[in-house]
């Protein structure tokens, strides 16, 4: 078990593409750390540098206090689960799991015991003599896990290990991996582009974009206190709604709507005090907008309804808010919403709002997020 430290890590690929910029953070001993971000943001690059499969252009990488920049993968005492599983096709499940132990030169009886133990943990006992080609995707995934845990390494690295499974199996394996990690208590880095996986599995989450670290924090803090517009929009589904607005004293003007901001917000974010015609970006999560007819509020806006998705337990109401929509730079968010500039509100299923109506929307103004329009960072 080991802590992992990254200090000003940079990666410039052979084609002079600068994939990672000044990455610095710590992963604590025994922690489950998730790397998340849109595809191409450098998650795999960072993971592969920690594994030793990719050279470090500059910066320092320490595992268990030891500087490992130039240490071979085999000498880093780290196990990795690949997205494609990378099982050895000519070896049986037993031989696949035993291979790292053989390479470590363990005695035969010890290997047999450890393989059996790993197989029991992962419910692979009946498959030990099969070849990978005969296994289902979920079983292959377990074998890849088995090959990793059997070594009792200092850390596990996993690169989108569930992305080749169907949705149902993915949810099941997500829980199994998280509970296995808690049981083994081995430092783990888990890469995913799926923020739901990140939020449900990680002790802490590293959010990245374009090779730059955005925020390292617990899932709760990422959700409640995002450092910038990108994290605010990336974490949570549907995404946070982001608009340009003007704050004057306590009055917020959002397009043609205005409402008062409660005192608590100013205690929470003191630098908003005394604003006069201050341009801000505001963020409202879908669950903080409700049907005013059901839950009235002192802060209300009205907006035309463009679409209602009734999900049974709630209704996703798309609103056309007449303020400047802010692009957070998250490609996935746009894909989620469809018509990108609509705001999404999570109404109670009792709401009678229909497409074409002008809805009265109660905004939970205490829950508003505020960002600087130029730096796009949170205003505290």
């Amino acid at each position: 078990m080991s802590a992992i430290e990254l200090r000003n890590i940079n990666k410039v690929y052979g084609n002079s593409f600068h994939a990672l910029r000044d990455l610095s953070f710590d992963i604590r001993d025994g922690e489950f750390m998730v790397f998340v971000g849109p595809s191409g943001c450098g998650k795999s690059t960072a993971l592969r540098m920690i594994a030793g499969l990719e050279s470090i252009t500059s910066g320092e990488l320490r595992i268990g206090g030891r500087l490992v920049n130039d240490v071979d993968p085999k000498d880093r005492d780290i196990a990795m689960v690949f997205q494609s599983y990378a099982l050895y096709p000519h070896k049986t499940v037993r031989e696949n799991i035993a291979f790292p132990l053989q390479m470590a030169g363990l005695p035969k009886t010890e290997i047999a015991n450890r393989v059996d133990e790993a197989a029991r943990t992962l419910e692979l006992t009946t498959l030990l003599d099969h070849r990978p080609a005969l296994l289902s995707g979920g079983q292959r995934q377990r074998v890849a896990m088995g090959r990793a845990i059997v070594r009792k390494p200092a850390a596990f690295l996993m690169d989108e290990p569930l992305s080749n499974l169907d949705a149902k199996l993915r949810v099941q394996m997500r829980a199994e991996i998280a509970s296995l990690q808690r049981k083994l208590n081995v430092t783990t880095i888990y890469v995913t582009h799926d923020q739901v996986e990140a939020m449900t599995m990680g002790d802490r989450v590293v959010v990245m974009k374009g090779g730059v670290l955005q925020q390292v924090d617990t899932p709760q803090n990422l959700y409640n206190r995002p450092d910038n517009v990108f994290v605010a929009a990336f974490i949570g589904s549907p995404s946070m709604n982001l608009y340009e607005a003007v704050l004057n004293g306590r009055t917020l003007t959002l397009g043609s709507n205005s409402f008062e901001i409660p005192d608590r917000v100013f205690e929470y974010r003191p630098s908003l005090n005394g604003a006069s015609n201050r341009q801000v970006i505001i963020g409202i999560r879908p669950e903080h907008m409700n049907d005013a007819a059901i839950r009235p509020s002192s802060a209300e806006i009205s907006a035309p309804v463009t679409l209602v998705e009734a999900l049974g337990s709630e209704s996703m109401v798309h609103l056309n808010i007449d303020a400047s929509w802010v692009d957070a730079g998250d490609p996935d968010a746009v894909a989620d919403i469809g018509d990108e500039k609509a705001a999404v509100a999570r109404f109670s299923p009792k709401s009678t709002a229909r497409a074409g109506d002008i809805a009265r929307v109660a905004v939970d103004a205490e829950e508003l997020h505020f960002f600087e329009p130029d730096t796009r960072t949170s205003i505290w």
Partner: protein
Amino acid sequence: MRRARRFNINGILVNAAALVLVLSYALPYVYLLMTSIKPAADVQQIPPSFLPAVVSLENFREVLQSSALPKAFASSLAVAVLTTVLSLAVAVPAAYVATQYRRRITTLFLLFALVTRMVPSVSLGVPLFQLLKSLGLLDTIPGLVLAHTSAAVPLALLLMSAFFEGVPKELEEAARMDGCTRFQAFRKIILPVMIGGIAVTALFTFITSWNEFLYALLLTSEATKTAPIVIAEYNSVYGLAWGAMTAAAVLYSLPVIVVTLALQKQIVGGLTFGAVKG
């Protein structure tokens, strides 16, 4: 059973087309076979007959009793085996590196291998002759092995590259994470996975050397003459010995055919290897 009816209409056409194709490339060989089992006297009859009137093993008896042919077979075998071993020892690692560590230089390297395959061997015969002569390797087994290897390596390189293209990079990476050096990963994981492809490449390399005529003609004389040369000489040294020649040719073709049939499964598996499923 709807498939059965379709098979009747399309299947017959497909089978007929396949039969025509097979006949067109098998016909010369069948004719060779038929000629070899005719009595020596019937071979040159005019007009020639396709089927033998009488089946006789006279031609085979004759070539096996002569001393030249067994010796030539031994030379051919030694040259082909050594060429195969040497070519694979060079081409397998080279192809792996060229495909797995893609750089502009490795692409050029493979392209160059392809280009050398296009140079007619006639134009390389004389330089090879001079080279071997200055090395004192004319009419020796190592000399001919080197000449055949120079022709076989580019072929083996291209074949093995095609096979290695299908090996995901993660396989080597997984092995390195599991405690292998790069070389151990290659030896313990990549080579065993590629065994089908290596078998196919070995067979093609072996056949290239076994069947080779021109270099053998130029670079050997009495001491290490290979079988194709001896077979051709039946028409000059012993007059027009068509019968003996066809019998020797049939005998010479048998090992290759037997090995190919025996390795049938590996070859088809190797040729359609594709991505390694993990």
